[in-house]
């Protein structure tokens, strides 16, 4: 039995997201509400994608069609949740005693993005994991034997990507910065189509993680990070000493 593989892949795929949830979200009820809202909006995008997929029946077997429209729907719903959260911002702030800051705006974007990512991660891996507990492993038809591992890595990558994309996307919308929004939609489409060309092979994983690094760097820059901050963090300097 490959219960071992099952747990291994589960930890790889959901470990980072779990850590983020535990330390940054779990203790704040407001953030949990936003997280669930993020999940819900991703599900809505899935609902619309599947409705479209069902209606346009001649293209049911064309995976590319489904992927492209699914990405578009996700981005549209990312915009909707942005609108909703910004509208709700004032209401939500009544729970808080302090006035809103830029950090709070980024926090909302980050939490909603994690919700978005978690739901997409759940859907992309749960069915694969269900199969992983059986006695067999992939490969009898010549598929890569690393199928489960690459699926888990890909899922982990997508959860994090959604989180960072959301931060960039919300910032772009706030600033009316079209390139930032375009960057998110463009890279989402790019990486999704990449999986179409070479589905779940190590060759897809490396570019995906490169994109993740770039996205992460941009998001970090946007929320007020810099190389100096990073070095300060790495050299264990306390706040206050950081020189801007």
């Amino acid at each position, binding site marked *: 039995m490959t219960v071992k593989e099952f747990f291994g892949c589960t930890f*790889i795929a959901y470990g980072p997201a779990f*850590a983020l949830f535990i330390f940054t979200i779990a203790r704040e009820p407001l953030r949990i509400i936003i997280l669930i809202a993020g999940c819900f909006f991703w599900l809505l995008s899935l609902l619309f994608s599947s409705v479209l997929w069902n209606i346009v029946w001649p293209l049911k077997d064309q995976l590319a069609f489904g992927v492209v429209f699914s990405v578009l729907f996700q981005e549209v719903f990312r915009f909707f949740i942005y609108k909703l959260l910004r509208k709700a911002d004032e209401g939500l702030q009544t729970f808080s005693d302090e006035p809103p800051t830029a950090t709070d705006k980024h926090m909302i974007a980050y939490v909603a993005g994690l919700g978005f990512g978690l739901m997409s991660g759940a859907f992309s891996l749960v069915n694969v994991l269900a199969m992983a507990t*059986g006695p067999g492993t992939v490969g009898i038809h010549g598929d890569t*034997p690393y199928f489960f591992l690459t699926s888990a890595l890909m899922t*982990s990558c997508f959860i994090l990507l959604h989180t960072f994309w959301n931060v960039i996307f919300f910032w772009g919308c706030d600033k009316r910065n079209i390139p930032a929004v375009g960057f998110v939609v463009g890279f989402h489409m790019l990486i999704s189509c990449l999986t179409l060309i070479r589905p779940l092979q190590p060759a897809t994983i490396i570019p995906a993680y490169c994109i993740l690094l770039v996205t992460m760097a941009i998001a970090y820059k946007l929320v*007020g990070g810099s190389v100096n*901050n990073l070095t300060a963090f790495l050299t264990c300097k306390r706040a206050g000493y*950081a020189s801007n």
Partner: protein
Amino acid sequence: MAVSGSVFSLLLLCFPLCLAQFRSVHDMIYVNITAQAPCVRLMNATHQIGCTSAVSGNVGVLHYCAEQSDVDWLVRSAKNPPYMPLMVPPLFTYDNVQALRASGKVSGILVVNGNRSDPQPPPTGFSPVHKCPNDGYGLYKDDPEYAHCKNTTWNPLGTGLSYLDFDFPISLLLNQTDVDNLIDCYNRFNKYDNESNQQYPLCAVQIKDRMDGAKDSITCIRRSELSSQSLNPFVYCDALGDKNVWGTLRPLNKSTPLDNRKDLILASAKIDTWSLFHNVGGVGANDATGFIALLAAAEALGKLDQAEKEGMKDVMFVFFQGESFDYIGSSRMVYDMKRGHFPEKLDDKVLQPSLVNTKNIQYYLEVSQVGLWEQSGLWAHSDPVSQKTSAVRDNVNTIFAAIENATESSNVTIRKPPSFQALPPASLQRFLREDSRVAGMVLSDHMAAYSNDYFMSRLDLPVEIGMDIPAGLKPDQAYDYTTKQGASLTKVATVIARTLYLLASNKTASEATKIEVNSTTINHLLYCFLQQANCPLFAEVLTSKSAAALKSLPGPLPRYVSVPHDTASQISQVIANVLTFYLGERLPSLNKSSECKTPSKDHIHSYIFMNGRPVLNPTDNTTSYASFCIRAPVRFSKAESPAFLSKEMLHSNEYPTWTESRWTVINAKIFLVSSEAEQTITLSVGVVVLLVSLVLVYFINSKSEVLFTAPEAAY
């Protein structure tokens, strides 16, 4: 399992789009085995036999055994158990199976089903039943001289393989594509040098055929009964059984009861056979020659004109079901006769046949295996014990004289084995056990040990008894083709028909020569029962509905007795219809299927609206059927062991107690397994990723003011 269960329920909550991918992931990992005949668990009062897998199935690394050396390697040197050997037919022997089982290295066995025309049997023969079949339920159970085949070993090649209890599955692969898939997978992944280490991933097989019943019939029935009172009733096993078919040359009627008259002639044969593998069709060919010859003899006698039939003694043809399992069919018939319930309890309101009792039987002729008589001669066996009574001895001698007279004008020689030799396993034993005054003989193709080297196995195939139908023939040519067996069985059937005629009519041997069994009939019966059930004869004699059901059957009908249903099994139904067709009178006035119904008050006859032959309509090229209504004194009787009628009888050791375990799924699949080390690496990577994430996020969160110095103005 709990994990996969919870994940699965989560999945069900998901939406249908998942399913598309869900299936494809399954297909990426598994290749299903499409057709298999498993060895299933059966139980009697004291034992369980057969096979079962674990609840979640048995998994083993595939090892293709094409040579004896492959089996030896598994037993001696294989290092990474469990294995799942795939064995070619000549290697699947008792010794090999026992060696593999004793090694503890196999989790199941797959057997290649050889080509039916070239089955490649083990050179030493193959019979997986006991050396002394049905021992303990026959006539000589406690006989000091004859018990346990002391006097003659009937089946010396019998190994008893079918009667062993295996804790792993054994499956016969019926589809050559599956075998090819397995061998291909083996060649790609498992073809390592026998000495060196295996290289993962390895090709493996899972067989799932968990049996619900366990221990023995008594336990299993008690469990089912206990469960029947619960909220979730569950049946663990069912008693084996079906229906016997019996018919008479002219109707028996209770208005002229047999009473104490001893002038009934009973001719019987057994229908069923058994092999280690569940419900394989077209096996037990030599076993089938008996009932085929008797059916053909019934046709020859059925053609006599009505006046002549009226002048003859009553002749009853009986086709017993379940005889392979300690005489289920005959033990029930004898039990019913003894209680005065055969054919049924008398009831004033309905038209019924007269009661038949064992004491009414004057002559009993049983046809056993007769397919190989040209090699080993035709033999008439009788019981030495009951012949100590002179009245019985005289009647037995009369039967033998009749057989000798019947052979006169043909070149068949009938011989008697030495007078001290016991009766071979036969339904007659159950009659004699109840009433030692029944005079009977058993016709067979062996003097002592069986001539059949494949008794009760999947290898008792038509080709082994000389059914040499050339490969290139079209189905309708093969149907009419006279095989070696067809020619030789026609002679035996003629002898049987004439013997019955002589016994029933007091005519001379020369007058009996007018009785002739048609070789076409034999050819058709052999073809339909052993080669292809979807054949013109069956299509003609069945009802249109049953005939349509046979169309989808790829080969011959299985003859395993199975478990009883409201209606008779397909094989009993077909035999009843063929017998009705041969013995019956057509009723042209009833030309609609709705009119041709057995009247509810008539328990003497059966009315069947037969499908008839296809008639091509030349004007519009459509086919219609010349359906007709036919009536004959042919009925079913229960072939269910009396043991299950009461607790006392279940424990009495008198009657067969065989039950078949129930099961829910039977499937098998091929896939790759990764090494233990690889799985551990995956798990370790997962744990490391989780821990690193936790630590990293903890520090990022606690030092967020260092990392993110977001100036208000920047937003």
